[in-house]
């Protein structure tokens, strides 16, 4: 894969990841709110 493209994908991906986490926390979508207590036993 082209090195420049790889660099662009990395930084764009990182920015998207950080934005998703921030939005997730702001709208209460973060995973600390859920419990999966033995539901799949």
């Amino acid at each position, binding site marked *: 894969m082209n090195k420049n493209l790889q660099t662009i994908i990395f930084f764009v991906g990182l920015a998207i990841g*950080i934005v998703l986490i921030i939005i997730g926390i702001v709208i209460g979508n973060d995973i600390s709110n859920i419990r999966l207590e033995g539901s799949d036993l």
Partner: protein
Amino acid sequence: MLKKFNLLFYRRLSQTIFGLLLTNSYLQIITSKSIYSGPLKGFCVPFLNCHACPFAVFSCPIGMLQYYAATQQLPLFLFGFFIIVGLIVGRAACGWLCPFGLLQDIMYKLKTRKFGIPQHLNYGKYVILIVLVIILPLITHIHWFSRLCPLGALTAGIPWVAWNPIDPDFDAPVVDLETIGFMYYLKIIILIFFLVWFVMAQRPFCRVICPMGAIWAIFNRVSLLKFKVEQSCLNCEQCEVNCPMELPTPEKVDSENCIKCFDCNSCKHISAKFNLR
């Protein structure tokens, strides 16, 4: 040789301490008789780890993904977690942390006749991810992958049924044995099938089935942690012999199925780098 021994030793240590012991360290279960449901259970580890295991402290990322699919919510935080971890280390958690990977590595050492796995079966994990983890839970609201997961059977289903203590809150057994039916036995059969396969082939679950591996595989080629075959490579194919994923190296070094275990790195013609280029 010394370098290879050291890295393999540290990898086994990491798999055992971080992947197996620390993520499954809820010893209070012996007296409480119910699984840990404190704040740490709200966080997932970057590998399969059944949240219903009696000793589990953290949740399973695939369990969480199914939860969001089944409740028809968009898991923004979880997507962000996948993207960031994937971009930094790719599939390294499969090689360095996953306890199911450790089990497969150990079982493959048993001396029996060994079989290869056709490369095209590697696409199976993407089908499992899309069908059992996303589409079916979205439509049926049931966590289908967890219902069939052999790791879940091994670390949660069997231990709970075998132990089945009296729940002090309800003064009744934790597992109602009358509810055990077809799905439980199917899960056991799937587990037995995989245990036999683990002895005969190298890391078959990681290569063919694991939806967590499928997610990390997407990021493998663009992750910060990279392996590079030097131009001085003599095509001795020692890297292929060492590779636990049986990748046709050196061509496929650092491909989507590479678990970044550094086993190929014992050859001086393959270097590991932690940078963008």
